[in-house]
């Protein structure tokens, strides 16, 4: 009976930590996707001959964190702009062909927003590049968003982790309190502390590992079926598949199970051994 209750508490705490872990993993996966929403448009100086475009492109592509680079001719740019203005962009027709005031450009996407500014400046500083236009405003919003989410995520992990371990240690204490008579009798009969301790530690380990196994199954089910279905309905972001995350989850659970079950009971039995 008491084992059931202990396992329940342990499973619950692991579930909290596991959920926080999965949450953090998904948030960072999601943020990675969000990071794609950026672009630097680098306008090529008119003096650069077209033959050099290829090597220029290669040089930009070689920069740190450049995820994608796409060449856009000035004609295409004008068409795009016209399309954006709709019917009323007809007046732009006057600028087509040789009259086109726009320039050929590269549209660059950055993989790591932290390097966005650096890349933008590097590209801007290239001789062949006339000037750049970037979405620094949006990038700034995304950057702060990411920082906030990450810091919150880490703190939530830490708080939940600490709190869970605290809960477990107190639960073990209460459970051990149930055994105080048993322990004191063993001592009266001449058992050494080591002799008394190891069955408790073994039991703790067993409970810990059992809890880890139960929790792993539960976490898998909730994640794949409950959350998975929910997100499928959302139709925007997909969850990171469990198969990619389970080594981490398994390591966390078994780690907690072993440490808490084994060391936890060893630590909390001490009080009754010393008595």
């Amino acid at each position, binding site marked *: 009976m008491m084992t059931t209750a202990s396992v329940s508490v342990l499973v619950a705490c692991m579930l909290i930590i596991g959920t926080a872990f999965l949450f953090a993993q998904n948030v960072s996966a999601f943020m990675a996707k969000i990071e794609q929403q950026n672009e630097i448009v680098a306008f090529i100086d008119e003096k650069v001959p077209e033959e050099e475009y290829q090597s220029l492109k290669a040089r930009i592509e070689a920069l740190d964190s450049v995820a994608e680079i796409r060449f856009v001719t000035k004609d295409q740019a004008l068409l795009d702009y016209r399309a954006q203005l709709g019917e009323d962009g007809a007046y732009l027709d006057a600028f087509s062909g040789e009259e086109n005031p726009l320039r050929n450009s590269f549209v660059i996407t950055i993989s790591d927003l932290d390097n966005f500014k650096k890349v933008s400046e590097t590209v801007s500083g290239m001789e062949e590049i006339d000037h750049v236009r970037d979405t620094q405003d949006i990038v700034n919003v995304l950057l702060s968003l990411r920082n906030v989410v990450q810091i919150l995520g880490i703190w939530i992990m830490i708080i939940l982790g600490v709190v869970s371990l605290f809960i477990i240690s107190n639960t073990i204490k209460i459970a051990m309190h149930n055994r105080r008579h*048993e322990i004191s009798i063993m*001592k*009266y*009969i*001449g058992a050494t502390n080591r002799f008394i301790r190891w069955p408790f530690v073994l039991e703790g380990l067993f409970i810990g590992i059992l809890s880890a196994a139960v929790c792993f199954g539960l976490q898998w089910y909730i994640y794949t079926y409950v959350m998975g279905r929910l997100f499928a309905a959302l139709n925007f972001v997909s969850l990171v598949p469990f198969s990619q995350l389970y080594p981490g989850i398994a390591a966390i659970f078994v780690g907690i199970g072993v440490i808490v079950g084994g060391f936890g009971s060893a630590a909390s039995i001490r009080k009754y051994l010393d008595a």
Partner: protein
Amino acid sequence: MIVFDDVYKKYPNGTNALNGVSFKIDDGEFVFVVGHSGAGKSTIIKMLMHEDKPTYGEINVNGFDINKMRKRKIPFLRRTMGVVFQDFRLIETMTVFENVAFPLRVVGTSRRVIRRRVPYVLGIVRLSHKAKNYPKELSGGEQQRAALARALVNNPRIIIADEPTGNVDPVMAKEIMELLSEINKMGTTVIVVTHDKDLVNTFNKRVITLEDGKVISDQTGGYIIHEEF
């Protein structure tokens, strides 16, 4: 050998349980300890097994100096004695067999020996049929005999029995006392705390009489208790 030299015990709540107790019990002796309820008999046993320390005075048990010994030695002191506790102190989560086997397991006795020794001792106290039962499923007297079996099983140098016959009928009480007497004859020191006047008178052994935490008489034979409190 057991030596008490001017031992005082004051419990944290202020009760003076022992007020200068001195006696010496040689190896192989058989001693009754008698006295009113609350005279300090069980307290002496607590001191003997280092369940608690005396407030003052010297105690030496089987070569262990109770005041000066290190904590880690306590289990080894306790293994030299088999104690029948007044409140039995059986482990609730273990069967009778496991309870009796416990002192053997503590000293690392092999399973084979345990499987032979435990049933033998349970037979002596007539509890073979309850080996698989838990303490809760035993009658009062059966629990007492299980506690006795546990005290005997390890062939300790001293056997201390605190009221070992309080819950059994006179015939069985006499049997138990004869058993202890047998064991004593083979060299084991036996200390029996009891209120059973008949037994004390029948067995004609050394009797230490306590009153208010003092030894008021220490002589062979006869149960002496003052009628007035």
